[in-house]
């Protein structure tokens, strides 16, 4: 009796299932995800602390202003948008989130390569596109699950803080922020997967995407908008008025579309209403840059898996 080869969708489902299990068993992926969650909690605490401290300063200021005969201004907390409480999340998604996604993406391919599965798998009549699509689905699902849990922590923080006006717009904003964060993290997950499929050694497969991440986070924003390396960590820098001049016009036109760290920071800062928004990019442009980066990396991953030489698939440290 001859069994028909499994369909592409069946292969994709099996591949996704295996990749998810392998990721959950990997200590490094678990460690980085845990670290990301700790930072989500820290961000929630900092949001609470920011409100609490400014309230306390305001209370201490009133007697001083009265003693000087000055008018009492309104509490600045009232002027602060609710979602800006989570402004640190922009930094943590950009740093730890991206690194965790990168390792997760790497692990979805590395588990197969280290287990010697590739030669066996690719000797069967299975669709390589199906395998790649399954791994992409696993990356998207894992990142979405992690961000959903992070969003839940933020939602609980907002519900616990007294005096916040939680309108439908605020909840929609939170949802949009995590949607944009998912787009950013999935791009790095895919980058990790492409590197794991393309390089011969695990160390290079980790070092190369980390170097790309470093360049995108700290070097490119300086060339397009004169945002210094440390200022790049501050979400408030996303909407700085960029310097004018031919150099920045050209650099921005060339590097803007690939500067996804800048696009993410701009979008996230706009959604969280951290600053009014005065950067060179636009919401549509930044969103398009993130979507195109994801599509390009997904396509590159499918192509790398299709061209993968299973006979030389050993994966050294």
């Amino acid at each position: 009796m001859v069994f028909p080869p499994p369909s592409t969708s069946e292969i994709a489902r099996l591949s996704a299932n295996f990749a998810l299990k392998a990721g959950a068993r990997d200590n490094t992926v678990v460690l980085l995800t845990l670290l990301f969650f700790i930072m989500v909690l820290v961000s929630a605490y900092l949001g609470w602390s920011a409100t609490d401290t400014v309230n306390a300063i305001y209370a201490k200021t009133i007697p001083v202003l009265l003693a000087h005969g000055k008018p009492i201004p309104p509490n600045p907390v009232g002027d602060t948008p609710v979602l800006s409480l989570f402004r640190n999340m922009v930094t943590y998604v950009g740093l730890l989130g991206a690194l965790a996604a990168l390792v997760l993406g790497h692990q979805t391919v590395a588990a197969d390569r280290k287990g010697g599965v590739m030669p066996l798998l690719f000797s069967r009549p299975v669709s390589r596109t199906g395998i790649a699509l399954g791994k992409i689905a696993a990356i998207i699902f894992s990142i979405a699950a992690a961000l959903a849990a992070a969003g839940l922590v933020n939602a609980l923080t907002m519900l616990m803080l007294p005096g916040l006006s939680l309108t439908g717009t605020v909840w929609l904003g939170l949802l949009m922020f995590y949607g944009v964060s998912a787009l950013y993290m999935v791009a790095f997950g895919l980058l990790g997967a492409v590197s794991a499929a393309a390089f011969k050694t695990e160390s290079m497969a980790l070092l190369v995407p980390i170097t790309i991440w470093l360049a995108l986070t700290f070097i490119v924003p300086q060339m397009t908008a004169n945002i210094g390396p440390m200022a790049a960590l501050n979400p408030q820098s996303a909407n700085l008025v960029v310097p004018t001049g031919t150099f920045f016009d050209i650099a921005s036109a060339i590097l803007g579309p690939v500067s996804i760290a800048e696009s993410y920071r701009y979008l996230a800062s706009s959604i969280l209403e951290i600053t009014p928004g005065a950067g060179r990019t636009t919401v549509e442009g930044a969103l398009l840059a993130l979507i195109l980066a994801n599509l390009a990396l997904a396509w590159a991953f499918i192509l790398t898996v299709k061209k993968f030489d299973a006979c030389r698939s050993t994966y050294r440290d």
Partner: protein
Amino acid sequence: MISRTSQISTIAAKEISDALHAHLLTLLTGFLVAAALVSLSVSAVALHGEYLIYIESRDLLISLGKPVADLVAPAFYPLKLLRGFVEHAEIIGAVLGIVLGYRAAALERGHSTLALILTRPLSQVTFLGGKLAGNAALIVTALAITFIIGTLTLSTVSGVGLGATDIFRITIVFAAASLYVINFFLLGFILALSIKRLPTALLVAFAIWLSLVLIAPQIGDTMDPDNQVAGGVFRKLDIAKPDEKEILKSFATYETIRDSIEQASPAKHFERLSFAVLGIKDIYNGQPLGDIIKDRMADVWWLLVTFAALAGLLFLRPLNLTRLTKE
């Protein structure tokens, strides 16, 4: 019997030769130089733009009848252009240190030569000392190249010749940067000699780097009460500086916690020292170097104590060869 000094220099020379052969050091140094050059050039371009705006505004004021004597020309400090340069050394320099530390251990573990070497008449201290000496030489050379290119570029882009004091100040920052990067080398090396799987060691080192270099200073910065409201909370409430200081006395514990988080970051100590020496931080601008060093001595000690602690850990902790064999 070969002397210990000779053994150390042989291992150090082998380490340098291996690193140059692998092109990894060249690649990372090139990346650091490129980042530093980008930073300097972009700062110069931005400064030039600001200068043109100043000229335009000045001409407008003069055309409106403002006396030239009333216009205060902006002060120009070329060393301030090194801000991004120092920050790149802080971020990418640390990565360079971690990768070299990782490579120094991975090389022996990957070839299974670690156990073999230590069966020879060679003490663990000599072996590790040779590795440290070789990599310290590589780090100092890589940073020296970066700083020399940076200094020459600074002089060219600013159009201002640097004096002997300026060069001396840059040399002090170079020495601090070398010590800072060597500390991260030790971190990467210790982890790669302690953790069973090499890629895990690399990722743990990067997680520590993220936490200490990027996240801890950012938390400290965010917790600053004046950074929690756009434009500053005290300015928004129209509070004068003396009253601000008085009010902040009630938040002494909060400030201590905030400062402690910042203090936990070796990057912050390197940054504070460098920004003070180069006059990037306004309060140190134009101050005598001796006074600045005296004021920032705590940062110097932090870098030295971190080095002593990590070196102590490296030399005093016995290597577990069974754990370090190739998988």
